[in-house]
């Protein structure tokens, strides 16, 4: 059962990373315009011909 000593903290850490990532995305306004974000990827005039 010694494996738990590092597996459990590792699992929790991974979960926490996800949570922090979500909070960061929320705070930086990435959920403010979901429909727009889907469309902004389409035009490709930012690429030099």
């Amino acid at each position: 059962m010694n494996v738990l000593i590092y597996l459990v903290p590792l699992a929790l850490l991974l979960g926490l990373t996800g949570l922090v990532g979500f909070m960061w995305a929320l705070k930086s306004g990435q959920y403010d315009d979901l429909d727009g974000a889907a469309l902004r990827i389409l035009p490709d005039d930012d690429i030099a011909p």
Partner: protein
Amino acid sequence: MAETLDLSQFVERNDSGAAHMTLAVDGVGCAGCIRKIESGLNKLPGVIDARLNFTQRRLAVDWRDNEIGAADIIQALEKIGYQAHPFAPERVEADDSRQAKWLLKCLAVAGFAAMNVMLLSISVWSGNVSDMTAVTRDLFHWLSALIALPAAAYAGQPFFQSAWRALRTRQLNMDVPITVGVTLALGLSLYETATHAVHAYFDSALMLLFFLLCGRYLDLAMRRKTKLFAGNLASFKAEFAHRLDSNGELTRLPVSALDPGDRILVQPGELIPADGAVLTGISAIDGSLMTGETTARPVMPGATVYAGSINGAGALTVKVAAAGAGTLVDEVERLLDKAIEAKSRTVRLADRAARLYAPVVHTAAALTCIGWLIAGAPLHFAIVTAIAVLIITCPCAIALAIPAVQVVAAGQLFRSGVILNSGDAIERIAETDTIVFDKTGTLTLPDPVADDCAIDPDLMQRAARLALSSHHPLAAALARRAAKRVPYPGAVEEAGRGVRAPIDGVEARLGSAAFCGLSDAQAARDGDASCIAFAYGGRSALIPIRQSLRPDAIEVVQALRMRGFDLVILSGDRREAVRPIAERLGVTRWLAALTPAEKIALIELLKSQGRRILMVGDGLNDAPALAAAHASLSPITAAHLTQAQADALFLGDRLAPALRAVVVARRARRLMRQNLALAVIYNAIAVPIAIGGLVTPLIAAVAMSGSSILVTLNALRARLAGPREDVTPAKPGDDTVVAAAATRGPSLLPAVQPAFAGHDNAELVP
């Protein structure tokens, strides 16, 4: 005349000194629009940043004042092909968006904690039946506690705060049992963990919070979408006034920036932006949006005009009056306050359930504890069992039962063009049995339509094309019929008389009967329509412009009657205008020429007969009646004040959304009741198990999630109310309802007529 546009009211200043403005943009529909608008604006000198929020259809622009102005930006957008309207965000919207963000954060924390605790719990459950040692189990329980306690303290805040608010005012709401349940489940688990027990309930408490937060968030998201939509529409409709400054210059500015005493210029065909007295000019005023009256009222210097009415053929200079006593808007607002005050606060279904549920559950838990003590069980066992009863009764199913249905039904309504204004609109609409309609703008289309049945189509087309050059409201109705939307060159408008232009070398005239060489007697022939005359060469015609019924009004009214609703029309318009409409719709109970106060009196009268009224109206004069009725509905074209009172708004030219609202609401209420019944059945099974002291954490987790999922799935059935069933006649079984309505119907007559016996136009034709 040159005119400057003053938008300073909408412009904010940020820290670096740059100006900032939010614009609601009309006509954005694709990826190309985003690029066109943003690159188009960013190219302008002085613009620092322009970013379009596609979801909200709003554009945020930052610019340096000294290089470019707000009006230039709007003009630039117009040149690219988009109508933009300055937008002043309302406080409510900002509050809602903060609330939504907070709920989302709570949801994220609850979700993270619930998943991780569930991982640990499943290990414990499987370990309990295999070879897990007591030490490992304790470690897992402590780890669960470490995750669950802070997470619940954070994610439970929406419930704790609301429960505290309710308790402080000595009320019970659904959040009280939720808070008690969660706190006790966590407390008990902690105690069990400390005493090295086999069971802990951390996962149940967190799952409960997670499910409930999902419901809350979806509910709020739906309401935000409605408000966003309504907010944009309001800014599209926002009114501007032309202010005549002392030096004779004209400034175009938002109506809210007008001060009493300002002189404003109202062009022919424009909406009068504020109450006031006419200084110069002669015209006729169409007040149909205010009073429902469809004939124009002549005004001259000294006359009082009201905001919201439409100016006729002459330009007017108006001195803005303070919003003092005596104006119509003022009268309406006074009535409104009274109506809102008098409206008995209806208790929501969810709160009613909570009031029943909380005492029953808490008593059951107390009795369990006492019962086990009397039976000779140890104190620890009695308390643990009592808490298990509290947890297993699961506020989850009950707390989700109603919001889940509400979210699904609101989405369903949104798709069919009905947007909800108030949270309990669905419940209240479902409870109504009598529908009161306003006529102008509600049963009829908001804009009048030219009636061309008796007129040569070629002549009609010429008249319609000539009408493009006129500012008169009647001409605007005619101009909509023009196939070729190019005005004739050389058209001249003569104020107060009409417009003339040479067509193929022959003079054509459009306007008053006299202007076109016809006698007034001919024009007066058509009772319920206003006429506009047209003369071209030797030919002439009188074109009646009338309020036309919404295209599906007859079918919708028919379908509503089949569903057992009593229908009444209360209009502010003249009798002669209301009668033909009522006859065509087959509505036998109608009253015309009513003031706002009389409308309220009639609504109160109907209410005193035990009816629950759904008021459908759009005029400013309907606003108090909308507030007084049990539930209310307005077309999106309604006056601003009226919209604010309505429980729901419907879009488009058709009346069908009104029917749809009723159908979906009734179905939703049925589902809410079913859900409550499901929750009761679930409790009937689960509570005896808990009282018997047989609940393990596994049973608790399965029972809680199971009941939540069941209730949510049942709520999804609200989507099944397909559009097809609306206009089809009700099932044969519903005949009893129709019969009941018929027997109840005539009672309206004796009750209403004495009250309005002295009223000239009062007529309730049986």
